[in-house]
């Protein structure tokens, strides 16, 4: 149990009182008091999100924007710090990326959005991990050119609504959301409240993230929770959902020592950037792209029922330790324990038999394709 003095130092999100009213179990997370679960519990909350819709308070995450004289200038400034293509990011489009250190390790993973409005040209919106805000912001301030500034947004909440019925539930209050393509965003009204909504998330489901002024966040959350299809979901289920979706949790599955090639997130590196380089650690990353990395993040399915957690060693069958589990637990949708971790490339093929060492016992496991459950991101029908 955290002591009372430490808890009083915790920051609260604009939805804190609502969480308490809903019976959430509040825990310290990245300096915030956050709901780990509500009364239903992690398992029920996980399955609710997969079958209907879940509402997640992600206001602890860092919202900021980069502002420069024009799109190309701002995009080039961000490209100097990441391996992604932002110059050609379209209006209203979102892209997942990573901030890289000079060794090609990952300082943080982040979501970047170009405003849909031409009037905002030169602005890129960022959402970064709560625990990395200070590090990220210091990095931007140290590295950005003089004509591109970082503006940290402190007065907005962020609410994720995820699941097969999420968009329909939000559309009842913000009809324009139904027209958004996956990984695109727009400003719109939610019951008359100005919001910025992107069609993305971190659960593997269709859904949105709603950025709204702190003072209006509770009205939006209450309006959505009044819908029978939507329940409040805590960080516990957020973690099991993203694990099943094969998505990395910063500080666990990726960190300052892992490159995006090792982390198996090369989808954040578009063709021009891979070829041209020009990002921190490009020597290492381009070499890993060409010759393969030494180790790589893989999915693991355990044969038995015992879960393997972060830190469990990965070994060859009856053989030496070759890697480490970085995330693991019981997967409610799969109905079995799953994990992800790093192994040498030569042992990373789907179907490779390995063992995970838990409390001194070797549990049989198999390298599995990720995601562990199919993604259900929205694809616009071709017209």
């Amino acid at each position, binding site marked *: 149990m955290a002591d009372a003095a430490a808890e009083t130092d915790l920051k609260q999100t604009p939805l804190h009182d609502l969480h308490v009213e809903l019976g959430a179990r509040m825990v310290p997370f990245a300096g915030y008091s956050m709901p780990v679960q509500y009364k239903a519990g992690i398992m029920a909350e996980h399955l609710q999100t997969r079958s209907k819709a879940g509402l997640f308070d992600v206001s602890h995450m860092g919202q900021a924007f980069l502002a420069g004289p024009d799109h190309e200038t701002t995009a080039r400034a961000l490209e100097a710090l990441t391996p992604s293509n932002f110059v050609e990011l379209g209006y209203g489009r979102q892209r997942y990326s990573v901030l890289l250190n000079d060794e090609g390790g990952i300082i943080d993973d982040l979501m970047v959005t170009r405003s849909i409005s031409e009037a905002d040209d030169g602005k890129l919106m960022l959402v970064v991990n709560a625990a990395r805000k200070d590090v990220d912001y210091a990095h931007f301030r140290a590295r950005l050119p003089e004509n591109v500034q970082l503006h940290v947004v402190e007065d907005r909440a962020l609410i994720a609504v995820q699941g097969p019925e999420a968009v329909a539930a939000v559309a009842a209050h913000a009809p324009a959301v139904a027209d958004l393509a996956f990984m695109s965003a727009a400003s719109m009204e939610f019951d008359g409240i100005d919001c910025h909504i992107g069609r993305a998330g971190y659960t593997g489901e269709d859904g949105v993230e709603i950025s709204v002024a702190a003072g209006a966040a509770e009205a939006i959350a209450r309006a959505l929770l009044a819908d029978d299809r939507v329940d409040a979901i805590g960080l516990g289920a957020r973690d099991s959902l993203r694990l099943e979706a094969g998505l990395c949790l910063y500080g666990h599955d990726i960190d300052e020592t892992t490159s995006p090639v090792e982390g198996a997130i090369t989808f954040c590196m578009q063709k021009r950037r891979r070829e041209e380089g020009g990002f921190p650690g490009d020597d290492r990353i381009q070499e890993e792209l060409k010759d393969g990395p030494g180790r790589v993040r893989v999915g693991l399915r355990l044969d038995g029922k015992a879960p393997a957690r972060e830190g469990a060693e990965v070994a060859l069958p009856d053989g030496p330790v070759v890697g480490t589990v970085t995330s693991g637990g*019981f997967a*409610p949708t799969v109905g079995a324990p799953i994990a992800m971790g790093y192994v040498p490339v030569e042992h990373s093929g789907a179907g490779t038999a390995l063992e995970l060492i838990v*409390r001194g016992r070797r549990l049989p496991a198999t390298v599995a394709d990720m995601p562990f459950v199919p993604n259900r991101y929205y694809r616009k029908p071709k017209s």
Partner: protein
Amino acid sequence: MTIYYSKDHEWISVEGDIATVGITAYAQEQLGDVVYVELPEAGREMSQGDEAAVVESVKAASEVYAPIDGEVVEANAVLADEPAKVNEDPEGGAWFLKMKVGNPDQLSDLLDEAAYKAYVGTL
């Protein structure tokens, strides 16, 4: 039959020289959905405070400690197939293990129901 409790949220039901050990309703509520229970083999000699079992919830693994010295005589095989029973019936059918009481003096250091309830009230 006398039921004792520990500050580690275990209950110990003693009948003759056999103690049946499980976790309390408070403990299961704190753990959340139990997905796996690892139990000791019959015949294992344990000292008070030894790791006797492991309960895995969706979120985390938690140890269950031997509340007293003794030899394990039986583990609850039902929990291998139905770990969720720990949430449904923690102080009944979801007992973890039975052990032969090795040192009866240790029982007097445990809590009775009223003292355990009072302890939980302070948490």
